């Protein structure tokens, strides 16, 4: 019997996943700043404190470093914490625990422990929150062996990948774009997982592969719909996982379309686009390329406050359309 499918928002899908995880396993608990009666800065935990109590929906002091360390310590001693950063930017305060401890503990101890820790990072720009509340750090953490880093782009994936993350024995970092929280989509009831480390082809096409992450997946799909009317057939690959990256899906797609564009919100240089491009350049897909690879990423600036400037610092649908046209027509 198929599970009943409803329209849920991305935030509701995450909340439902956390509730299911807590129902299934008493070791699962939530911790973070103002996730209790406040419901979380983005209302993702919502009323979970009423249903699971303040011990399992644990408000922490404003102590990102200490809080992250407590989560690491709880994870290695038998609990399964889901730690919410209020904004992904605040991960900078906790890098020590994430990078030096959570990521390395299993390795340093020769496999004697696992760190079954989930961390959630509300990320990205577009909310007028300016330079310290709008960043996209997924590539930072993606650079650290020992971590898994995912970026679900739909409510369905947000629920399924969070449940996969909770079931994972290793630390999983989930970057959730804040503008996606209100996005609605079909979400089945009950338990299901979406595997970590598998990309998804959101739209099949012949002329161009766009590898997109997070909110850029929808923008790429919107651009593809416009380009279709012009006779340009775009394949959109939702990378979904930054580490470990699903190379084969991207390679196969590029071999089919012979053109590659990477679209991501984080600062363009030294980012995910660089990794995907280099990976293709090193692969058998390189010989299939008919044009140079194009990266569309964030501007080399902090995120500005002014709404027009803010939009201009990250790729928008018209930017994708323009770049795709040039790429397919051989302008570049």
């Amino acid at each position, binding site marked *: 019997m198929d599970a009943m499918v409803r329209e849920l928002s991305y935030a509701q899908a995450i909340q439902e996943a956390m509730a299911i995880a807590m129902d299934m396993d008493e070791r699962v608990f939530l911790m973070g700043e103002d996730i209790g009666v406040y419901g979380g800065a983005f209302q993702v935990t919502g009323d979970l404190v009423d249903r699971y109590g303040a011990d399992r929906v644990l408000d922490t002091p404003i102590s990102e470093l200490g809080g992250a*360390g*407590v989560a690491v*310590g709880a994870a290695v*001693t038998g609990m399964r914490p889901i730690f919410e950063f209020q904004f992904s930017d605040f991960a900078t305060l906790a890098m020590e*625990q994430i990078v030096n*401890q959570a990521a390395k503990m299993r390795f340093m101890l*020769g496999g004697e422990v696992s760190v079954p820790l989930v961390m959630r990072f509300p990320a990205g720009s577009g909310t007028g929150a300016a330079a310290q509340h709008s960043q996209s750090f997924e590539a930072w953490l993606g650079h650290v062996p020992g971590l898994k880093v995912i970026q679900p782009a739909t409510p369905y994936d947000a629920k399924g990948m969070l449940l996969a993350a909770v079931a994972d024995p*290793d630390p999983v970092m989930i970057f959730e774009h804040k503008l996606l929280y209100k996005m609605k989509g079909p979400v089945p009831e009950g338990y299901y997982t979406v595997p970590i480390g598998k990309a998804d082809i959101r739209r099949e096409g012949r002329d161009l592969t766009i590898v997109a992450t997070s909110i850029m997946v929808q923008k790429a799909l919107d651009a593809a719909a416009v380009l279709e009317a012009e006779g340009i057939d775009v394949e959109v690959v939702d990378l979904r996982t930054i580490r470990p990256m699903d190379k084969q899906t991207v390679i196969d797609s590029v071999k089919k379309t012979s053109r590659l564009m990477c679209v991501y919100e984080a600062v363009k240089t030294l980012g995910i686009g660089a990794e995907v491009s280099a990976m293709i350049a090193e692969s058998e897909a390189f010989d299939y390329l008919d044009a140079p690879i194009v990266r569309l990423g964030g501007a080399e600036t902090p995120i500005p406050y002014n709404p027009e400037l803010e939009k201009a610092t990250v790729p928008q649908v018209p930017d994708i359309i323009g770049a795709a046209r040039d790429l397919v027509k051989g302008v570049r």
Partner: protein
Amino acid sequence: MAGASKAVADSRANLPFVYRQYGAEQLKQVLYKMYLIRRFEEGAEECYTRGLIHGTMHLSIGQEASAMGICMPLTEDDQITSTHRGHGHCIAKGAEVKRMFAEFFGKTTGYCKGRGGSMHIADVGKGNLGANGIVGGGIPIAVGAALSSKMMKTGKVVISFFGDGANNEGAFHEALNMAAVWQLPVIFVCENNGYGMSTSTARSTAVKNIADRAAAYAMPGVIVNGNIFSEVAEASHKAVERARAGEGPTLIESKTYRHRGHSKSDRNRYRTKEEIEDWMSNRDPITLFENELREFGFIDDKGIEAIRNAVAQEIADGIEFAKASPSPDVSETGNYVYTELA
């Protein structure tokens, strides 16, 4: 009153804590382990000098009473987080020196299968969640382990060892505050050996005693002479009882001294020879404990000699075990990064 009959107990009524609390065999075992820590580190240092161990190491020679005293009331299920100066903690919590030597030699039989070395020495089976290369890194992790204990109602107590340097890290503040807010069964043990690398506590720390900082977290702050085993053990007993009873955390400042430099690169330019000499000659924790044991009639010179010989044999056997153990294959470089790869 483990091991002591009533008549014996009465005759000991005026002795310091541990001589009332423990029997002769247990106390001799403590002396054995203090020697084991000392000789382990001397052995490791010698192997390093001879080029058998690479990297660096941070020796706790002079701090043995602190490690042993703190771990004295712990059960095997209780847990600790340790520091880069953590060999003593590891042995005090029950580790075998042969597997520690093997780790220092980078061998597969080491506690971390050669991936951690001195700075990440651990023994998870005995409750040592690991030394830490980051100053203060283990403090919040200990609080997390104590949170697990409370949530899972396991009754475990967690000790977080750290040095005077760590008390100026933000992690110290955040972790102690959370432990107190949530009344967790964790004991913070600051082994104040006077110097964070080269910088004295007088130059680095605004308060005279690190234990004074406990007031900021509404928890007891206790100062002990870290070179007197009985003092340390007594403070640890009280803190462990308090933690087990659900009454929350304690901060213990164990004032001690490291005879050796910070690490292998230290030229000791920040302290005088006289100062080091004084601590070695007049305040050595093993000598102090040995003298008390002898004075109170728990051991004689022959007994001490027997312990020294047995320790020397265990150290020699441990080094041989390490030398004879296999190294990991370079094809296994990627092991243990993720769980499914192991």
